[in-house]
C-alpha cells in the first residue's frame, strides 16, 4: 500500500474519532448519550486491570473472566456444531438417500433465526450454559452443514472417475478425493459459523446467562454505563476478528494448493 492510499485509508477513522471526541467535549450531543473515546479507553483499562484502590465499580478487573466465559461458550458450541455439521454434511452431499431424508428438514428449520429459539432454550435448558451452548451450536451448525454439503456435491466428476480408474475403493475416494475437494467449502462454512457463534453468544448472554460479555453489555446498558457498553462491543469485535483469523490461517495451511491456483 502506498503512503497516499494509507493516508486516505486512515483519514475517515481519524476524522470520525476526532468528531466523536469533539462532539462529546463540546456538548454538541446531549450529555451522557455517548461516551468520549478517552472515557471508553479509561473504562476499558479499569475493566481489564482493575484499580489500585478498592473500587465500588462492579466492572473493575473483571474483563478477563468475562472474556473467558464467552470464549469458552463459543468454542464449546462451535466445536459441537463442527463435529455434527461436517460429517452430516458429507453424508448429505454424498448419499442421495440421506439427503432426501434429512435435507428438507434442515432447509425448513433454517429460516427460523436463532434468536427465535432463545426463549425456548431458556425454558428447556434453564438459565445455564446449556442454553448458550444450544444456541451457539445451532447457529453455527447451519452454515457448516450447508457449505459442507455443497462442497461435497460439487466434487468434480472427472476427479472421481480418475480416482476410480486408478483403483481407489470407496473409502479412498471419500477421504482422498471427496473430502479434500470439499475442504475449501468446509472452511468457508467454519468461518461463517464462527461469526454466527459470536453473535449467538452475545444474544444468549444478554438474556439467558448471567455472565460473559453479552451479560456485561446488557447490564452496563441498564445502569447507563455507555463507556463499558462500547468497550464491550470493541472487545467482542476483537475476539471475533481473532477467531476468524485463526480459522483463516488454518485454512491457508490446509489449502496451500489452492492459493497457488488463485495466483495462476
Amino acid at each position: 500500500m502506498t503512503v497516499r492510499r494509507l493516508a486516505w485509508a486512515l483519514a475517515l477513522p481519524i476524522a470520525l474519532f476526532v468528531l466523536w471526541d469533539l462532539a462529546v467535549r463540546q456538548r454538541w450531543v446531549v450529555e451522557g448519550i455517548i461516551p468520549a473515546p478517552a472515557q471508553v479507553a479509561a473504562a476499558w483499562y479499569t475493566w481489564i486491570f482493575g484499580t489500585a484502590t478498592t473500587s465500588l465499580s462492579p466492572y473493575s478487573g473483571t474483563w478477563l473472566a468475562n472474556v473467558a466465559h464467552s470464549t469458552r461458550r463459543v468454542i464449546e458450541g462451535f466445536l459441537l456444531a463442527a463435529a455434527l455439521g461436517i460429517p452430516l454434511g458429507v453424508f448429505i452431499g454424498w448419499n442421495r438417500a440421506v439427503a432426501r431424508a434429512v435435507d428438507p428438514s434442515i432447509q425448513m428449520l433454517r429460516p427460523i433465526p436463532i434468536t427465535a429459539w432463545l426463549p425456548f432454550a431458556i425454558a428447556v435448558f434453564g438459565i445455564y450454559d446449556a442454553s448458550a451452548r444450544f444456541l451457539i451450536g445451532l447457529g453455527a451448525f447451519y452454515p457448516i452443514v450447508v457449505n459442507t454439503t455443497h462442497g461435497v456435491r460439487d466434487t468434480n466428476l472427472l476427479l472421481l472417475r480418475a480416482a476410480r480408474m486408478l483403483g481407489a475403493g470407496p473409502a479412498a475416494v471419500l477421504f482422498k478425493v471427496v473430502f479434500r475437494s470439499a475442504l475449501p467449502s468446509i472452511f468457508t462454512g467454519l468461518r461463517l459459523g464462527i461469526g454466527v457463534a459470536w453473535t449467538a453468544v452475545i444474544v444468549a448472554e444478554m438474556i439467558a446467562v448471567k455472565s460473559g460479555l453479552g451479560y456485561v453489555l446488557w447490564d452496563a446498558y441498564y445502569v447507563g454505563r455507555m463507556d463499558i457498553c462500547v468497550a464491550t462491543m470493541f472487545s467482542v469485535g476483537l475476539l471475533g476478528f481473532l477467531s476468524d483469523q485463526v480459522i483463516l490461517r488454518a485454512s491457508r495451511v490446509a489449502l496451500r494448493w489452492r492459493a497457488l491456483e488463485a495466483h495462476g
Partner: protein
Amino acid sequence: MATDTMVMVSHRAGRLGRSPWARRALSLIGVLAVWQLIVWANEAVGFMNPALLPTPAGVVRGASEQVAEGILYLDVLYSLYRVVLGFLLGAAVAVVLGCSAGSVRLIEDFLDPPLEMLRPIPPLAWLPLFIFWFGIGEPSKIYFTAFVAFFPVYVNTIEGVKFTDPLLRRAALSLGATSGQMFRLVTLQAALPQIITGLRLGFGMAFLALVATELIASNAGLGYRIMESRNYFKVDWMVFGALMIGLIGFTIGSLIRAGEARLLRWRPRDEK
C-alpha cells in the same frame, strides 16, 4: 451430480417420492413422527419435565388459541412492518454505497477502513446503543434492523461491482460504451446475481435482529409473544412462535428467490 453411485441410488429411490414436494412432505412427517416418539418416550420414562416438552398437538392447539384471541394477526403485522421497512431502508443505502464504492476506488478506500473495523463486532452487540439512542419505540427497531441488513448487502454489492468480468467491459468499450452506459448496461447487470445474494443474506440477518429487539424491548410482535409465553411457561406457544417466524422468513426468502429466478433467467443452470 457428485458420484456414479448416486445415480444408481436415484433409480431405487425414484419409486418412493417422485416429486420434490412429496419428498419434502415425507421428510417433514418423519420429523413430526420422531418428535412425537420423543414425547411418548418421555411420558414413559420421564427424563424431563413433560411441561417443558412441547407436543405436535400442543403446538397446533397453541396456534388455534392465538388465532382465536386475535393476537396472531396483529403480531405478524407488527413484525412484518418492522422487518420489511428496516430491510428496505438498510438495503437501499447499502446498494447505493456499494455501487459507488465498487466503481470509484477513492470512495472505497475512504469507506472501507471504518467499515472493516466495525464488521467483526456482531451486529447484535449494537442493540443497547440503538435503544439508548432511539428509545424503546418503533424507530430504534427499524433503524437497528436496517443497520444489521446493511452489511451483507453492502459487502456483496461491492464484490459484484468490482469483479465484473473485465472481458465484458472491454467488449462494451470497443462497441463504444460511455461510462454511464457501462455502469447501467454492463456493471449493474453483471453484479446483479451477487447483489441478490446479498439481499437474501441481509434479509436473514435483519429478521434475526428484529426478533432480538422484540424479545428484549417490545410489547407486540412475534418475538415479544415468544418472550411473553416464556413468562407463562407456555412452551407450545413458544415453539409455534418460532415456527411462525420461520414460515415468514421462508416465504420472503422464497419471494426473493422467485424474483432472482425471473431476473437471472440468463444464467447457466450449473451456476445454480
